């Protein structure tokens, strides 16, 4: 297991390095930030001073090497707009996004697995057909539009829930800021988390259903029933443990997608996370923040991949054995 993790960590480091090059060279091409930062009436000398102070006059490979050495020390440059370290800007807003993504994932799992298993156990029931049609609806609904409709219904018409922000009362748990300790915080996160969850909910339903349909026809399920186990135990232990393998794998990988897709939800609900920061930064061509965002996302994906592999080997004993041999 340790060998496995070390090997995977080395692979991960390589991926991060390659991605850093791609990200940097990609963003290097983003339009000229000087246009935005320098006043229209500035003269040539002022412009050159700004360019020099930002290091934009250096050739590409020098800029990249400097970026890399600094990145290794945790310095991803300073925001052109905020005059703050880009990494700090990201890290300040990361907890809000994480909170949102985790809440969305919870909603997707808590509702998706039971609904999917049900639809898989009774594929011909009306209720299952409703669930499956609902999941296609979930795939089809454009997230941003659903968000607007939620605001219209719950905030404007019914006046039940707030439509923007994450509430004022931020508390710290183990050093992480969270708004989930107060009812106000929950009322703020309910709409955006549901909004963000819809797509993944549909995905979980489909995965759980497909897994269930495949597993229930296996001999070992019939054998479990032949042992006189209750349906409850057959479903909760024998079926569930088998379908959890694909569901956990896909969900682990999809968590990164949730974080990326929170760009949309955060924009709609004015959620103060990294997604909104990214959209603002793209609008302002704030290059270091875009680069920092992408580096953090790449890192997140690599870590998630690793965690998924570990979870996978814990869930599926066959994988564990192969690894011991390797």
């Amino acid at each position, binding site marked *: 297991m340790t060998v496995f993790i070390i090997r995977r960590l080395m692979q991960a480091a390589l991926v991060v390095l390659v991605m850093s090059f791609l990200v940097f060279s990609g963003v290097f091409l983003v339009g000229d930030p000087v246009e935005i930062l320098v006043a229209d009436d500035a003269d040539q000398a002022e412009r050159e001073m700004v360019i020099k102070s930002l290091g934009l006059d250096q050739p590409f490979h020098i800029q990249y090497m400097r970026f890399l050495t600094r990145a290794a020390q945790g310095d991803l440059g300073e925001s052109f707009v905020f005059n703050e370290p880009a990494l700090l800007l990201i890290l300040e807003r990361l907890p809000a996004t994480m909170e949102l993504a985790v809440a969305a994932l919870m909603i997707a799992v808590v509702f998706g697995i039971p609904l999917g298993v049900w639809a898989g156990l009774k594929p011909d029931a009306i209720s299952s057909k409703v669930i499956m049609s609902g999941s296609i609806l979930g795939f089809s609904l454009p997230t941003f539009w659903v968000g607007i409709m939620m605001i219209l219904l719950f905030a404007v018409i019914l006046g039940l829930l707030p439509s923007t922000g994450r509430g004022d009362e931020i508390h710290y748990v183990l050093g992480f800021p969270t708004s989930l300790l107060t009812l106000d915080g929950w009322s703020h996160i309910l709409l955006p988390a549901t909004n963000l969850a819809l797509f993944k909910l549909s995905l979980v339903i489909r995965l759980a259903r497909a897994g269930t349909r495949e597993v229930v026809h*296996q*001999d070992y399920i019939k054998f479990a*029933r*032949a*042992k*006189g186990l*209750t349906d409850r135990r057959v479903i909760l232990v024998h079926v569930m443990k*088998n379908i959890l393998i694909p569901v956990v794998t896909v969900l682990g990988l999809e968590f990164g997608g949730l974080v990326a897709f929170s760009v949309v939800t955060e924009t709609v609900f004015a959620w103060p996370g990294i997604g909104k920061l990214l959209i603002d930064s793209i609008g302002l061509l704030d290059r270091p923040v875009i680069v920092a965002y992408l580096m953090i996302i790449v890192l997140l994906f690599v870590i998630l991949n690793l965690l998924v592999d570990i979870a996978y080997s814990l869930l599926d*004993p066959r994988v564990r054995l192969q690894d011991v041999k390797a």
Partner: protein
Amino acid sequence: MIHADVPTLEVRNLKTHFFTRAGVVKAVDDVSFTVQPGQILGLVGESGSGKTVTGFSILGLVDPPGRVVDGEIRYKGENIANAGEERMRRLRGNNIAMIFQDPMMTLNPVLRVDTQMIEAIQAHEQVGREEAWERSRAALQQVGIPAAEERLRSYPHQFSGGMRQRVAIAIALLNKPDLIVADEPTTALDVTIQGQILYEVQKLCEETGTALIWITHDLSVVAGLADDICVMYAGRVVEHGTVDNVLDHPSHPYTHGLIGSVPSRNRRGQPLSQIPGMTPSLLNLPPGCPFKARCPRVGDACDEAPEISQPVAGRDVRCHYPVPAGETAGETAEVPA
């Protein structure tokens, strides 16, 4: 508990049909037999003859679109053919156990062996984990698995096929059932392993007085193991009697042909006889005897489905033109014992 006059299992005119989109498949169509305590019944037939569905019907494990449409399944006198789900659950694994064909598929790959054994005990009895574990260990030893303690903590993929089937047998024996339905449990195994398992099952049934229904397509297995034999064809029992009797003097042309097609050392070098044609599709079976298209003794009466008759005492045969008693199978075939 065991009364000599009440059979462990009595199946009367069982009909299990599958209502598919394409039509009704009469997988089991009028099957009757009786199993006494401690007795071994061999249920023989080609694949698709309905023998496995018969086994599932007994345990109430027929999945939709199939269901038992008619007949009685009497377990110690109680008709369980349409018993409630909870009643069946209590019987399954406790009074009636089942062993499946493919040992590679019957154990859940993601659960440890001890989990799968302990749950089988705790489904029927209020016992602690410790005690259930101890009983599981004893059961593994009973079926000849060495280092049972270590094996209990393993996952199914760490066992060979033969070992897995032993585990499945141990699970079937855990609650000391009165009846075990074994669905071709040795077909997927090597011949040597097959022999060992046959021997041990026979021994265990003798020791515990468990009745056994051994489903197989292999006549030679039944010849060495069973007391009674029940030959199925196209969902129906075509011949039923004691093993010695049926194998020495088959009355039904199908049984006759089946015995003739078994290779035997007595007939080295001679061509094997075979039954011409193929098993008919059970979907929309034409009227009349289902075997008539392949039968060497076919006659005018065969356009009408034959009923069970008893041309010889102690023998049920479903044929209009049974093979006369004098014309033994021995002249063309000798089944190895």
